[in-house]
Every structure is written in C-alpha cells, then in structure tokens.
C-alpha cells in the first residue's frame, strides 16, 4: 500500500502504528490474551489499515502452514523397533 501522507490515516495515531501492532501486540491479539480496551483500539486500526490486515492474513496463513506439518508419518513399527533396541542394550533393570 502506498504510504499515507504524514498526519493522515490510522498509522498516525500516537499510540498505534503497524510496527507496534506487528512487533508488540500481535501475539496477544491472536491468542485472545489482550485486554479488551486495547483490542478494540487495534481493531480500529485494522479497520483502516489494509497492509496490517494483509499482514495478519499472512501471519495466520503461516500458522496454518506450520500446523499442516504435524501429521508427520511415524515409521511403521517404530514403537516395536525402539523397544527391541532398548531391550538389546539393557540386560538388567535400571
């Protein structure tokens, strides 16, 4: 997005900047651990700031991408292999 002229647009609020939202507040915003008043303030910022909305979308997309890594294929019979491995190396109780 083209940068807005100084003194206009949501990012020129003294309190809220894109940087503050992204770097300091996004975690709590996303996790729902942000105080309600602060959240409302950031939501107002988001309503007027397409780059932040885009950033938020991509942050969420990153989360979805990472979660998609989870159903990792565990090798067949790994539990049995591990058990036999430990048994073969330990002849007596710990």
């Amino acid at each position, binding site marked *: 997005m083209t940068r807005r002229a100084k003194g206009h647009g949501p990012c020129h609020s003294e309190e809220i900047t894109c940087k503050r939202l992204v770097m300091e507040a996004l975690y709590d915003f996303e996790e729902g651990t942000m105080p309600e008043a602060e959240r409302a303030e950031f939501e107002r910022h988001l309503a007027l700031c397409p780059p932040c909305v885009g950033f938020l979308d991509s942050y969420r997309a990153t989360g979805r991408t990472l*979660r998609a890594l989870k159903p*990792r294929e565990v090798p067949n019979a790994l539990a049995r292999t591990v058990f036999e491995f430990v048994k073969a190396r330990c002849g007596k*109780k710990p």
Partner: protein
Amino acid sequence: MSAPGVSHRDDGSVPSDLDLVRRIKAGDEQALEQMIERYHARVYSLSYGVLRNAEDAEESTQDAFLTLYRKIGTFDESKKFFSWFYRVALNQAYSRARRRRAGGKVSIREHLPRFGEDGHLAVPDWPDATVAIEDEVAARELAARAEGFIGELPRAYRDVIWMADVEEMPAAEIAEVLGISIPAFKSRLHRARLHVRQRLAEISSPTRRSLVAS
C-alpha cells in the same frame, strides 16, 4: 532387562506416567513397552523438528528411550515426567545434530518485518497467502519451505515454534520443558513466527517470483 516385577492394574484403567515410571524402575518390561507406545510418536516428531531427517529422528528416538531406561532411577517423582523426558529427547536430538552439522545459522534479526520510519507497513509482501494455502500442492511446498526456515532458526526459537505450532503443545508445558518463563515463551514464539512468515513472504513476493522465473 529383567522380567516384569510389578503387577499390572486389572481394572482396565490407563496407568499414569508416574505409575509406569515406578514400574519401569522396578524392571517391568511391559511398563517400558507402554511408555514407548505412549510417547514414541511425539518424541519422533520432536526429534524430527531438530534433525529434519527421518533416519536421524528414528535413531534419536531410540537413543531417547534408551536414556530414559538407563536414567529413570534419577527421575525426581515430584516433577512432571513429560518435562523431564522431553528434555532428555531434545538433548539427544541436539547431540546428534551437533555431530552432524552446525545449526541455527541465521540471526533472528535478519528476517523480520520491515517498517518505514513512521512505523508503517509499506507494500504488502505476501499478497496471495490465502491462495497458496488453499492450493494443496502449493500448500505442501510452502510447508516444506517453512520446515526449512524453522531449521535455520537459533535453537531457542526453533524449539519453541516447533513445539507450539507444529506439535501444538500448550504454552505452560513448553515453558516447563524448556525451563523458561511464559513471557519469554511468548516473545520467542512471536519472533519465530515473524521470521518464518517473513521468509515465506520473501519466496512468495511477486518480485522474488519474477526474479526466479527470469
């Protein structure tokens, strides 16, 4: 390994970790088998997060359980078993990783979002995130790249993002396993997420794509 020395519950209830620990200490093979059955997939995935290689992760999982068996006598029963065991598993994986290669080559500061002097975000750097995620092939490719980007993070950040966003472990558990505070956990996780997002943005941006295509 001695023959089972502790009798099993016969009420059909699932034994707790501590039940199994006590029985393993007493030399109960079946308890060890149950413990392996309970945790092998999570330990494998955790190890994979560090090593990013199936064969290494499998061997590291074996080593983790071997260490568990050998060191179970030192486990303090007043502590949570999984915290102790995940640390054992992580140490095994990192020890193997050190033997194989140096990790964490990229500084966490190198790939974070960029802002103007006034705190603005400038041009959106990842305009088609949703499209990429919805396309199955693109999503798989993106996931593979994300996995690589996690691998280049310093250990402090890599462990946190892998456990939180891939393993989906609760914050309190992760903080306990890693011995860090909740605020430190949040800060590391957020930084790590920003890093991975930024790296994905770099390979997704139109400028980058046209450079690759040309």
